[in-house]
Structure formats: structure tokens, C-alpha cells
């Protein structure tokens, strides 16, 4: 049990145990000896008293003076503790009696003094002997002397034990109290002393606890000497070293963290710089491309000689290729900038496959490839435009890298998911290179970087888009037996066939449609103006918002306003649209055009419910949008 005791309890035990043993021993010894003394004294007193009575009554007994004896006894009876006195002569005949002698104990004849102890009394016998006086002439002569002492009688004295018992009890209690006092005193003293021992250690323990809790600056007060001092000094040393080590480690961690942060910042800065470069580059490229596209569209509308027409077609094809490249760059840029917000919804797969087949079968045929699409009745949860983009990139990649054979687009349900696969029997990809091909500008078989093989952004875009849509991208491939690219999307329950048919791509008549355009870039403004005029629209153009407001003021409300997003006079296209709608009513249709790839314009346009077209705007796309706006407007007008 002691093993689990604390220092204080041990010290108390060590201090108290000897004191207890000593106190118990001393108390027992002294109480016992005191009681023995007391009894001895009591006996002595009784004997002396009996002797005194014997001596005092000697003459009265000699002279047989009973009255005298009684008087003496009555006097003696007043002594404390005397219960009774009895005097008999040598023949045992009672001479006198005083007080009470317990009758149940027979009296004895006594020739010598002795005593008996009873339960409540002590009985003393004392012979009454005549006083000896050496007066004989022949006192020296034992023959003459005779031996008889001629006893006169006997005194029987009963002394009460009550007082003795009282005294003994009192002694016992006193001894017990003293013992208790000593015990209590020694325990108190030991506790007090033990504080002196345990307190420094407890303080050290508390300090160690605080140090352990992380307060490394804590120190122990060094008090006392010897082991206590060594302990305190040792703990302080330990704390010192801990603090040193801790500070060192903290410093190193801080340094490492700072370094990491610096690198991360650097990397982020580099990334941002890259994105900004791409955004700026694509924006700056887009303005002329936008204008160029519009001009070529307008040019092709006109009557030309055949040679010129061929030239115009070649210019258009080159511009188209350039636009495709720029689109890819723009996509990457937009994806990296986080500007693309997927519009995820349940989507039937088959229409997308049909459009892909439609878009690519001519190109496939040109390259003597068979493009097959297996029908797929399933629906998936995805953004239809982006998913179609993924598929078109994969198919275009397959066509580009397949020399002969076929390309198959097929669906395969996998539990909750549907995997749409694009298979080719092309050259295949080495296992080592399978990760490489998803990086930007990586083209495995195009060291000469032939433009016909694209920029090397297609698969990079695919990977970014699948990540954005939370689809799983897979690749199975081996050199010689072709590649299988798969995109897994979560399946969705089929819904009723969409009532809204895909936008009618056939251009309708835009004759006399009133369109107001606003762009601070003169080239872009001019090209758009020309295109719209070629389409037969009634166009009002301005390079500044105030100018447009001035031109439109007082005139009829335009059917559609097309405005660049970023304008002069610190205004945006949205501001202008707001102003115009304020002037002409909220039915005013508007289209935003932006060369920015940043997320902000797209978000604000979406929030305002205004369609946003990125530069360079393909004329067909613009026309389709205008057409759709006008047809949507009709029922509203009718109503």
C-alpha cells in the first residue's frame, strides 16, 4: 500500500510512527507504574492508618475502655475512604466497631499485620501490641525475658476502593488524553514538517507539469540544497534545453514555411502571369480575328469572280484554322482562369453523338477513315455543350492520329455511370507517354509541329473539362493496337424529349432589324457594322456610350443592342444596356461581346440574364443568336 503513497504521507509516517510507538510505550509504562504506585501508596496509607489506630487504641484496649475505643474509632472514621473499623481483643471478642464492615467476608484473627483486597474494599488487619520499653533489669537475659509480646487485640480496617478506583480511572483517562494529545500533536507537527519536504517537490512537479503543457519559459525556484537543489537545477536545465530546441525547431519551421510560401506565391504568381498572358494574348489576338472573320463573312457574301472566290475561301479556311487555334487557347485560358461555369443538367447522349458524327464524318472520309457511332439511349448528368466539346476533341484527336481503319464511338453503362468511349485502331500510345499526352502543347508524333495536327491542346482541354465536370477520364492504349479514350459520367433517368429544338442554324431574314452596336475598338466596330449591314440590318453604331445615347435619343427603340463589355468612359456594356433599358423599356434585347477571358464579365452577364459572346465571334453564331432573340421576341410582341 505504502508504495502508492506520496512523499508527504511517507514523511508523516516516518515522523509519526516512532512518536506513536514511543508515546504508547511511555504512556502505558508510566500509567502502569503510576497506578502501581498509587495502589502501593493506598496500601501503605491503609497499613499506616491501621497501625496508627492500633497504636492509638493500645491503652484503651489494654484498659478495656470501650467508650474510649469507640470514641477513637469514630474519630478515625472521619478519615477519607474509611468504611469501617473493628477492634477485637485477642480472644476474638468485639471491643468496638465503627462504620460498616462488609459482613459477607468473615473476619480473621490476626497476629501479624496483613491486608486483603476485595472488590470494593481493602481490608487491613493490624494487631494491637503493647509498646515495648526496655526497662527490665535483666532485659539482656533472654532466659528471663520471656517471648510473649502479649498481643492486646486486633484492628480491622476497611478502606473503600472507590477513591483508588477513581484515581486509577482518572489516571487512565489522563494517560489516554495525553496519548491522544501527543498523537495529534505529532501528526500536526509531522504534517507541518512534511510540508517543508513535499512543498518544494510539489512545486517542482507543478513546474514540470506546466513545462509539459508547453509553457517552456517556466522555471523552478531553487530553494534548499542537496537533492532538492539538484532536482530544481536539473529541471531548469531540462526546460532550458527544451525551450532552446523548441525555439530552434519553431524557427526552422517558420523558415521552411516562409520558403514554401514564397515558392508557392512564386508559382501562383507565375501561374497567374501565365493565365494573364494567355488572356491578354487571346484578347489582343481576338480583336483583329473577330474583325477579320466578320470581314471575310461579308466578303464572301459579295459577288466575285471565281478566282477571287477561291481566294476568299482559302482566306476563310486559314482564318477558320486560326480561329480554331485561338478557340483552343481561349478554352485553356478560360478553364485555367476558372471562368467557365458548367451548366450541368440531365442530357440525352444520342443527340450529342449525332452531332459529332455529323460534324466529323466529312473529315473522316477525307482521311479514308470510317467513323461509326453506336446508338445510345441513355441520359447522363453533364453540361451538354462541354461534354460535346470533350467528345469532339477526342474524335478529332482520333481522326488526326489514325492513318487507316475506323473510329468507333460507343457507350457502355457501368452501374450508376455511363462510359462514352472513342476507340481507334491507330498507332497507340506507349504506357510511359500516356500521362504526357494530357499536357499542354504535347504532340507525340509531331516534332515538326505541323499545323494540320493542331496545337496539342485538345487532350489538355479534355482533361480540364472532365475535371471541371467531375467526370472520369480513362485511357487504354498500346503501341500498334490503337487507343480507347473513355469518359464516365453519372447516369440520369431519361426525361421527355426536349421540346426546344436545337437552334435553327439556317439563317432567316434579318431585313430591317434595328440593331445598335457599341465598341471602342474601331476595327471591331467597323467589321461588325459591315457584317450586319450585309445581313440587311438597320445598324446604328457608336464607339462611346454617350455617342450611342445621343444617336438613339428620340429615335425608335432598337430591336437588339450589341455592345462590347469593356468600354471607354469607365463604363461596361452592362451599364450601357441598363441606361438603354431605362430609356426604352426592359424589353430591349441585348448581346454582350467580350474579349476578356476573366470570370467577372461572364458572371455579371449571367446574373443580368444577358447572353455573352466571346471574341472572335463567329458570324454564324451571332446570326443564330440574333435570330433566336427575334423569334423569342415575336410572341411577346404578339402578346
Amino acid at each position: 500500500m505504502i508504495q502508492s503513497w506520496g512523499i508527504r504521507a511517507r514523511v508523516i509516517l516516518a515522523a509519526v510512527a516512532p512518536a506513536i510507538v514511543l508515546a504508547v510505550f511511555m504512556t502505558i509504562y508510566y500509567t502502569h507504574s503510576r497506578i502501581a504506585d498509587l495502589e502501593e501508596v493506598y496500601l501503605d496509607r491503609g497499613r499506616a492508618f491501621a497501625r496508627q489506630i492500633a497504636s492509638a487504641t493500645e491503652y484503651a484496649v489494654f484498659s478495656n475502655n470501650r467508650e474510649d475505643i469507640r470514641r477513637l474509632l469514630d474519630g478515625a472514621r472521619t478519615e477519607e475512604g474509611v468504611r469501617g473499623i473493628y477492634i477485637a481483643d485477642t480472644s476474638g471478642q468485639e471491643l468496638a466497631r465503627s462504620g460498616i464492615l462488609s459482613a459477607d467476608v468473615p473476619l480473621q484473627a490476626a497476629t501479624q499485620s496483613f491486608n486483603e483486597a476485595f472488590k470494593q474494599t481493602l481490608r487491613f488487619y493490624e494487631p494491637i501490641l503493647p509498646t515495648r520499653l526496655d526497662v527490665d533489669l535483666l532485659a539482656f537475659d533472654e532466659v528471663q525475658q520471656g517471648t510473649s509480646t502479649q498481643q492486646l487485640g486486633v484492628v480491622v480496617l476497611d478502606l473503600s476502593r472507590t477513591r483508588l478506583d477513581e484515581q486509577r480511572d482518572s489516571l487512565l483517562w489522563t494517560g489516554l488524553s495525553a496519548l491522544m494529545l501527543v498523537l495529534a500533536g505529532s501528526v500536526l507537527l509531522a504534517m507541518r514538517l512534511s510540508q517543508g519536504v513535499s512543498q518544494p517537490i510539489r512545486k517542482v512537479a507543478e513546474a514540470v507539469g506546466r513545462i509539459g503543457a508547453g509553457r517552456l519559459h517556466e522555471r523552478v525556484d531553487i530553494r534548499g540544497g542537496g537533492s532538492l537543489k539538484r532536482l530544481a537545477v536539473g529541471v531548469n536545465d531540462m526546460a532550458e534545453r527544451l525551450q532552446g530546441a523548441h525555439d530552434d525547431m519553431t524557427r526552422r519551421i517558420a523558415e521552411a514555411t516562409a520558403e514554401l510560401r514564397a515558392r508557392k506565391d512564386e508559382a501562383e504568381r507565375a501561374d497567374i502571369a501565365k493565365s494573364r498572358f494567355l488572356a491578354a494574348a487571346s484578347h489582343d489576338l481576338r480583336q483583329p480575328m473577330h474583325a477579320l472573320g466578320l470581314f471575310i463573312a461579308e466578303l464572301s457574301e459579295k459577288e466575285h469572280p471565281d478566282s477571287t472566290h477561291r481566294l476568299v475561301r482559302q482566306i476563310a479556311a486559314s482564318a477558320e484554322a486560326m480561329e480554331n487555334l485561338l478557340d483552343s487557347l481561349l478554352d485553356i485560358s478560360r478553364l485555367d482562369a476558372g471562368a467557365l461555369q458548367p451548366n450541368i443538367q440531365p442530357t440525352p447522349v444520342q443527340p450529342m453523338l449525332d452531332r459529332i458524327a455529323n460534324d466529323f464524318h466529312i473529315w473522316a472520309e477525307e482521311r479514308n477513315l470510317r467513323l461509326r457511332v453506336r446508338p445510345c439511349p441513355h441520359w447522363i448528368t453533364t453540361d451538354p455543350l462541354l461534354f460535346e466539346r470533350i467528345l469532339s476533341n477526342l474524335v478529332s484527336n482520333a481522326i488526326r492520329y489514325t492513318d487507316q481503319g475506323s473510329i468507333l464511338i460507343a457507350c457502355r453503362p457501368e452501374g450508376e455511370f455511363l462510359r462514352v468511349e472513342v476507340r481507334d485502331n491507330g498507332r497507340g500510345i506507349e504506357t510511359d507517354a500516356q500521362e504526357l499526352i494530357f499536357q499542354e502543347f504535347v504532340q507525340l508524333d509531331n516534332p515538326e509541329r505541323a499545323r494540320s495536327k493542331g496545337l496539342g491542346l485538345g487532350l489538355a482541354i479534355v482533361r480540364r473539362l472532365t475535371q471541371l465536370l467531375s467526370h472520369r477520364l480513362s485511357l487504354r492504349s498500346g503501341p500498334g493496337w490503337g487507343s480507347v479514350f473513355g469518359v464516365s459520367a453519372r447516369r440520369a433517368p431519361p426525361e421527355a424529349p426536349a421540346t426546344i429544338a436545337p437552334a435553327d442554324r439556317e439563317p432567316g431574314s434579318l431585313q430591317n432589324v434595328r440593331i445598335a452596336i457599341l465598341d471602342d475598338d474601331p476595327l471591331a466596330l467597323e467589321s461588325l457594322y459591315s457584317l450586319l449591314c450585309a445581313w440587311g440590318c438597320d445598324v446604328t453604331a457608336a464607339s462611346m456610350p454617350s455617342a450611342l445615347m445621343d444617336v438613339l435619343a428620340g429615335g425608335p427603340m432598337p430591336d437588339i443592342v450589341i455592345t462590347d463589355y469593356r468600354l471607354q468612359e469607365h463604363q461596361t456594356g452592362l451599364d450601357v444596356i441598363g441606361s438603354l433599358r431605362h430609356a426604352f423599356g426592359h424589353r430591349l434585347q441585348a448581346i454582350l461581346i467580350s474579349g476578356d477571358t476573366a470570370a467577372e464579365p461572364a458572371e455579371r452577364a449571367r446574373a443580368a440574364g444577358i447572353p455573352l459572346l466571346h471574341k472572335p465571334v463567329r458570324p454564324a453564331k451571332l446570326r443564330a443568336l440574333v435570330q433566336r432573340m427575334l423569334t423569342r421576341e415575336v410572341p411577346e410582341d404578339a402578346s
Partner: protein
Amino acid sequence: MLLCCMAGSLMAAPTVYLVLSGDADAYQRTAQTAADTLQARLPGIDTVRIDIDALDLQVLQQDDVLISIGTRAAQRLSQRPDGQRLICSLLTEQSYNALAPAAPGQRTAVFIDQPVSRQLALIRTGLPEWSRIAIVHGAESGDFVKVVKASAPALGLTVSAAGVSSKNTLYNALQSVLASPSILLAVPDPNVFNNFTIQNVLLTAYRHRSPVIGFSPAYVRAGAVMAVYSSPEQMGLQAAEIAVHSLRGGVLPDAGHPAYFSVSVNPHVARSLSIELPDAATLEAQIRRMEGSQ
């Protein structure tokens, strides 16, 4: 011839043996006085002082003289076959009378008891105004009482005596004899007057305002008003004188009371009892005068 004379004188010179009953001081004083007296009276006499227990009876010569000192020595020597002359000293008349009988002329004694006449003389001279004598006695001292009763009237004294027995206690006897003012005459009877009774006797007598005549100086010191006695030296002296007389060819005298005596007085007790007492020397002288006149 010289040798013969020397041998004859050696052979003829009797030895005096002082046989002690013990080594008590009284025995030694008696023997010392006797030896000194013998040497003084018979220079060259051989005296041998010996304890009774150490005495070898075989070494005794026929004409040696034995002086027994104390009762025990007297008793032991009386039991030997007759032969040497024996002078008993320092014993009571009562004890001497109890000894085994001896051949006539072979034994004598000096009692330690004083003669009744001397005691009565002391009473008469010391307390002339008192006329009554009270005596308490045991069975064995009846003779003494008879003698007192016989001698008292001549001195104008009356005697009242009471015996102590198992029926009559000492106290009762004292009460009866001291009923009227009397002089209590202590009897040298150990059954009545002994070391253990003396205090109570003295107290009783004092309560009756009766003077007590003791028989030893210690008695006087304890509270008796006066006493006549013989000291050990006086006893030794008388025994030696008898021996000298016998060695010189005299016949041994009859056993008798001591010739030499002393008187002791307690003036404090006398004053307590309002008694005018002459001093001890005066009394002694008067007693001698009275004895001389007889």
C-alpha cells in the same frame, strides 16, 4: 626442687573461669569488674573469660572457681557433675531457686533482686508521706508479696495486693489495687512486669496519680519515680570478692541479695506528681544508714 616447686605451684594455682551467658554489654561489664577485682586482690591469679558455649568442662581442675554471669551460664554449669566451686551472678532469686540442686558448699549466688527491706527503706525515705503500697503480682512471686506484707507494717505501711491471672487481667488488677492513692511497687516478675506491659502499667498508675517504684534505672527513665538496683559492676565486684574469699580458703557464703546497690530518681515524674524527692545520693546514703543500723 625449684622445678618441683614451680611445677607444684603451677599445678596448685587454681584458675577462675568467668563464664558468660552471652556477649551482652551487662555480661561483659560484670566480667570485666570481676576480673579486675581478682587481679587486684590476687595478683597472678589466672582468670579465663569464656562464653558458656565455648567452655570445655574437661580442662577444668578440681580447685578451679567458676563464676557464672547470667541465667543461662548458671543453668548450664549447674547441670555438670559436681566439682568446682560455682558462684552465680546476675540472675534472679527465682531463677537461682529453679536451678538443679548442688552439693553444699559448692555453689552460691548473688541475686540481682533487691531485698524487700531495701525497697521498703527506699519507699520510706523517698516518699515518707505515702503509707499505702499496691502490688500486682503473678503466681510465681507470691513469696515476695508475703515478705512485703510481713515487713510493711513495721514501717507504717499497708499493702494491697492483687494477683494477675487469665481471669483477672493486669489492668483490672491495677485498677483494684490503685483504687485509693498508693505507691505501686513493681515486682520483678516477667509475667507481670515486662518490657511490653511497662508502658500501660505506668500509664495506668499515672492516671491514678500513683508513683511507681521500679527495679532498674531504665524503669526510672521510662516513668517510675525511683528505683533501687545493683549495677553489673557491683554484681561483678561482689562475685569476685566471694571468689577471692573462697580461693583464700573460705567457705562459700549462702546465696543472697547484693550487698552493693544504687538508687535512681526521676525528678520530672516526681514533679508531675507533685512529689518532693531527695536526690539519689541522699536516698542511697539514708538506705545504707538504715541497713547499717539494723
